[in-house]
């Protein structure tokens, strides 16, 4: 197990290195850098001074080596766009994204898994309804979903239409702040959770349907175990293998930020940061965001592999072999 973990960690580091380096180089060589965008309102001398100040006049290799040496010291450079260290920006935004991602994942799990178990083990109108809802959930892109939810919130006034906290947040106690946050979270979390819940439902449904036909489930039924207990005790753990595999990717995607939902709902997370960085061609920030996204993706995959090994004895035995 230790060797397995080490291999996965090495893979994660390699992924982070390759993704962030590629992001750095591609952003640097793409036409129209940050300084070019600023220069449209500057005189030639001001433009030259800005290029010099930001080090944008240095060759790519020199910039890259300097950036890499900074990374070793955990210095991700300075954001052109925000005038702050990239590391501090990533930390602040990662916390916001993590909050949103955790709640979205909980919503998706709480909705998708039970519905998947139900539709995979039942027949009739209930199963058909769940399937139709899942197909709708899968078909609606996050952009449309979040816009629809924002529209609903604006029309009804039930929830704030955007932001993470209300403007009175600075004068609130911790309890009030948490309550305020709890009012702002459902909208973006649901926008993220609905398509994920639909995916989980579909996967769980098929997996449990297949597992419920396994001989050990039939044997448990023959031993007199009631149907629901047999499904939950014997079929469900086996059916979790493909579902947990998907969790890794979902965790990675969520924690690296869903820029569409974050931009539409003004959630100050990593996705919104990455979007702004890409639009402004903020070299160090793009590379930093890419590195963070790759890190979360690798971590998510690792966590799902470990969960899989924990829940499925066949994986553990395979590992030992």
């Amino acid at each position, binding site marked *: 197990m230790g060797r397995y973990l080490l291999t996965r960690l090495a893979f994660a580091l390699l992924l982070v290195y390759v993704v962030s380096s590629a992001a750095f180089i591609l952003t640097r060589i*793409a*036409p*129209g*850098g*940050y300084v*070019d*965008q600023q*220069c*449209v*309102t*500057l*005189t*030639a*001398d*001001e*433009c030259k*001074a*800005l290029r*010099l*100040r930001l080090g944008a006049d240095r060759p790519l290799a020199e910039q890259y080596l300097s950036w890499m040496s900074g990374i070793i010291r955990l210095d991700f450079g300075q954001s*052109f*766009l*925000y*005038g*702050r260290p990239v590391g501090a*920006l990533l930390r*602040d*935004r990662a916390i*916001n994204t993590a909050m949103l991602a955790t709640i979205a994942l909980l919503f998706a799990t709480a909705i998708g898994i039970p519905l998947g178990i139900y539709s995979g083990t039942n027949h009739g109108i209930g199963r058909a309804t769940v399937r139709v809802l899942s197909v709708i959930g899968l078909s609606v892109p996050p952009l449309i979903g979040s*816009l629809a939810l*924002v*529209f609903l*919130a*604006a029309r009804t*006034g039930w929830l*704030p*239409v*955007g*932001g*993470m*906290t209300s*403007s009175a*947040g*600075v004068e609130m106690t911790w309890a009030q702040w948490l309550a305020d946050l709890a009012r702002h979270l459902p909208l973006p979390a649901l926008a993220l959770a609905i398509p994920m819940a639909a995916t989980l439902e579909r996967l769980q449904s098929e997996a449990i349907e297949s597992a419920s036909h396994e001989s050990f489930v039939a044997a448990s039924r023959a031993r007199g175990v009631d149907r629901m207990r047999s499904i939950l005790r014997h079929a469900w753990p086996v059916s979790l293998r493909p579902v947990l595999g998907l969790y890794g990717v979902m965790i990675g995607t969520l924690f690296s930020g869903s820029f569409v939902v974050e*931009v*539409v*709902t*003004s959630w*100050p*997370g990593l996705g*919104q*940061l990455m*979007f*702004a960085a890409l*639009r*402004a*061609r903020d070299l160090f920030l793009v590379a930093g965001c890419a590195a963070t996204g790759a890190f979360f993706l690798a971590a998510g995959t690792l966590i799902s592999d470990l969960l899989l090994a924990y829940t499925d004895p066949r994986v553990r035995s395979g590992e030992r072999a």
Partner: protein
Amino acid sequence: MDWPTGQDVNRQPRALLSVLLIGAIAFVGWRYWTSTRPDPEEGTEIRVSESSTRGGTLRSSLRSEPKSFNRFVERSVPTDIYSLFTGSKLIRVNRATQEIEAELAERWTTSPDNLTYTLTLRDGVTWSDGTPFTSADVVFSFQAIYDPKVGSQLASSLMIDGKPLVVTAPDPKTVVIKLPQTFGPGVAIFDNVHLAAKHKYEAALKAGKFGEALGVQTPPADLVSIGPFKLTTYTPGQRLIFDRNPRYWKKDATGIQLPYLDQVILEIVPDQNAELVRLQAGQLDMLQQQVRSEDIATLRPLEQQGKLKLIELGVSADPDLFFFNLRSPYWAKDPRRDWITRKEFRQAISHAIDREAFANTVFLGAGVPVWGPMTPGNPKWFSPNVPRYGYSVERAKEILAGLGLRNRDADPWLEDPKGTEARFTLIAYRGNSSVERGSAIIRDELKPLGIAVDVVLLEQGALIERLQTGDFEAINFIQNWTNLDPAMSPDFWLSSGSAHIWNIGQSKPATDWEKEIDDLMGIVMRSVDQAERKKAFDDIQKIFAEHLPVLYFVTPRLYMGVSTRVGGLTPSILRPQLLWNVERMTVKQGQ
């Protein structure tokens, strides 16, 4: 002294209690009455002179975050707004009327040769930390602006013919400013001066670190203000909160100290659609900028419900622009060189565009046809007496035939005598709906003429790089005047200018008409005779309209969506259209 005894002792608290009880009942009754009685001014704008308008919080938006609070080195909308809220000018140009207004300099004199201005500063002005504002702060600010180590973005706007102004302070209340030569806009040049507190930043300037001072990580408590507000909270990604500066120097006509508002909150909302939804939901009082043409219809129902006002600001001074690359070397080996850079070709295009249809399609009817860079939105400098090219496809075809462009084969496109097709690539700014739609209109309107246009949408950065390197055939973009006086935008007009977009940074004028414009701009920039300046600029507009280095079709009408609870508005067509005068804005409280 007699002490109360017996019943008197018991009677006193009872009486006091009764008075308190009656007072409490009266207070509650009064509060109930005042809260339930109808507001006589419901739905109408509050006048700023009313003392009842003091207090309250205004909520607006920002679409991007500040990169710095240092306006000396950063020129962006958030930094500009920060500077408007926390700064004051010596003399300002009123953005609504374009008139000169005395600010921190309460009066000034001009020498007979128009080269020296002597400014007298107001008494009793202090920074928000209580330190007096003096002429030393003004001299220090100019030092920071001109210090090459600072790399100030204000420096070029405060140079005349590349030479700095010379600023001295004979006493704490007097500033003497000498110009290297006469300057047409006169004291309006001081509107470009931003002030820095010497007592806070002198050490940074001496250490060569003034450019890094006032970064966004600076704790708000360390930031001093001489404007109507001071920054109290900046939550990255979320909002900036400004509280009233109790030491602000300005008062209204009735002697009430400005600003009227207690607080302004700027919510950071990067997405324009999300910003609009927040306005609709009542979570914002106003948007950072004008409402897009396509959003006006969305806001009309709210206006009818009395929740919003759609204020027409007037005709924009910033039309979309379309221009060809007129650098000769770019076309040297191109077979289209014989006709694509000819003024007749551009005149034919101008004839071929139906400006009314353009206004209806691109700005959904909220647009005005224009024929040059100066629009009716800038009445002081706009000249209607310029050559115009009315919509006529026939006339356009005649002009093109005169250039040798005829349809010589079976396809619908024109060819020159060598068989080269009349085709060009138009690069447009992706993400701006009016530019995108405008580019499609240009392509569609030139098609019946036999000119093929390949529209390529590029991100702003990529487009600007192509513009600066001269690697383009034609571009459709947005004009963005930062000042309505042409003398303040010489980079666009002068052939040597960095914003002379059709042929940037010429060492000497490439054409006779550009030289003529250069000479006339000399008068616009140096003459102090306003009539002479206007005549010279009218001539420039005529030359421009004849040669059409840049084509203009339509400029939009500007609208701002504002909550009905906001009053004291002085709209301007220049950005930020309402917040520029935030000190006089008011809100109805309790709504």
